């Protein structure tokens, strides 16, 4: 208990850093991942912006990011991080590579949720003279909403895991704390505490995500 109280300031700081990293990259995965996933979907065969070249290019870009293990992606992006953020250390810097990974990850989930949308409903909207924008807004995003929310839950949870890795190169956060105290200094109780924190965090994201998705699902 004493060690826990002694650790509390460090722990709170680390927790705040984790929240920052996850929060920032979560934000970007929504605002860039959805358009990117949408773009992949509507440039695919048989849809209204069918474009083989652009579709292949977008797919390739995502695959490159997705097939690079996160720790390596993190290191690869360090120079770019330096240019964009001005530093490679701290949660803000780590958020950059986390965002890149999360956007690519979520874009694929968005694409696959959109693929689940009944083609008949898209056809009906087309038959009534809807513009592509109206189809995207009122049919695609509306019909895929439960899937999009479930995808966000998965992305959020993956981000918690990734953010722990970002700790290794100076991102800070709960993962960083676990490695410094729990691994290098053999303080197993710190390790346990951080793991419990991560479990609670993941649980909260999961329960919240499921609740919202169930509410949105009218099927």
């Amino acid at each position, binding site marked *: 208990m004493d060690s826990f109280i002694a650790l509390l300031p460090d722990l709170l700081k680390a927790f705040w850093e984790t929240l920052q990293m996850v929060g920032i990259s979560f934000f970007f995965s929504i605002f860039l991942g959805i358009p990117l996933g949408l773009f992949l979907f509507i440039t695919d065969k048989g849809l209204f912006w069918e474009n083989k070249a652009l579709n292949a290019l977008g797919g390739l870009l995502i695959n490159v990011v997705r097939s690079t293990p996160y720790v390596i992606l993190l290191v690869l992006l360090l120079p770019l991080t330096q240019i964009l953020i001005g530093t490679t250390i701290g949660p803000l810097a780590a958020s950059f590579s986390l965002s890149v990974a999360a956007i690519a990850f979520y874009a694929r989930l968005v694409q696959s949720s959109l693929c689940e949308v*009944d083609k*008949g*409903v898209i*056809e*009906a*909207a*087309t*038959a*009534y*003279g*809807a*513009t592509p924008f*109206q189809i995207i807004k*009122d*049919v695609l995003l*509306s*019909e895929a*909403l*439960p899937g999009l929310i479930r995808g966000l839950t998965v992305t959020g949870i993956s981000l918690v895991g990734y953010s722990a890795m970002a700790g290794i190169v100076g991102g800070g956060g709960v993962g960083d704390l676990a490695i410094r105290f729990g691994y290098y200094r053999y303080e197993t109780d710190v390790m346990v505490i951080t793991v419990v924190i991560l479990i609670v965090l993941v649980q909260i994201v999961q329960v919240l995500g499921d609740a919202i998705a169930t509410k*949105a699902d*009218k*099927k």
Partner: protein
Amino acid sequence: MVKIENVTVAFHSKEATFKAVNAVNLTIQEGEVFGIVGTSGAGKSTLIRTINLLQKPTSGTIWIDNEDITEYSGKSLRAIRHKIGMIFQHFNLIHTKTVFDNVAFPMVIAGASKEAIARRVPELLDLVGLSDKMHVYPSKLSGGQKQRVGIARALANNPRILLCDEPTSALDLETTNAILELLKDINIKLGITTILITHEMDVIKKICTKVAVMDRGVVVEMGNVYDIFSRPQHPFTQKLVAHTLNLELPSRIFKDVKGSLIKVVYNGDRAEEPILSDAIRTFGVNINVLHGKIEYIDEKPLGVLILNIDADSSKIEQIIDYLKERTASVEVFHG
């Protein structure tokens, strides 16, 4: 008026070109209920989709009210589509929107005002008998109710044309009849030109006034529903009609029966006359009815009877001649 002029739709694969619709010509008059019937893969679904250009014809012209729309795209295409309603086999409602919002959807698309929508949607739901379901989500509705929502949605922008793509194929018999009745009512009330495709002759019989029969991309026969049913010319049509009139005798009868089996088709004017009892009295023979059915198409009766006459051949011949004079067709198919 809708005119399909020499329309062909070809699909290309690596090996071959497949013509789903092959040089089809159809004219559908204002206010008509026009049926297109054929087995699956006959190209009827592709054909109906050329009317609102969901499927662009490879060649040929689509005329709507003497306006060639074949090359329309973008804004002009969307504008013409606002005036063509469509309903689908699987209803295609937006699951995440309420019945109200589904019906309002075409109006929102067309840029109608909130007030206009708030006025029109309850009217439409009243028309299809779903006023109490206004704020329910589609998943809570039965198949028939979903199709009613589909119909209300299709009528939202006061279209002059209603396309029906197998509207009852996913429904049970009772619901099918209710939906067909609703479509007929709407046709009479609003005078909307209705084009319907189906693989069931029964559906055609119940609501259409004119029918085109499609087989492998080609319209093989076309005319008034009553004429097609009473005198199918093309072998494919004969098969379709025979299937719905469905007069099949158990094979045992062919073995046991004495004399001839004759199939008699009555048409409108005479189906109500006592032709058979007249024949019995005139020729003094026994005529036994083995199978029979009288249908009412377009409110005109159409009867098919399978008769067994046991007499010597010359007399049978006389009876056949007698019947031929008074009925639509007589066919000896046994003995």
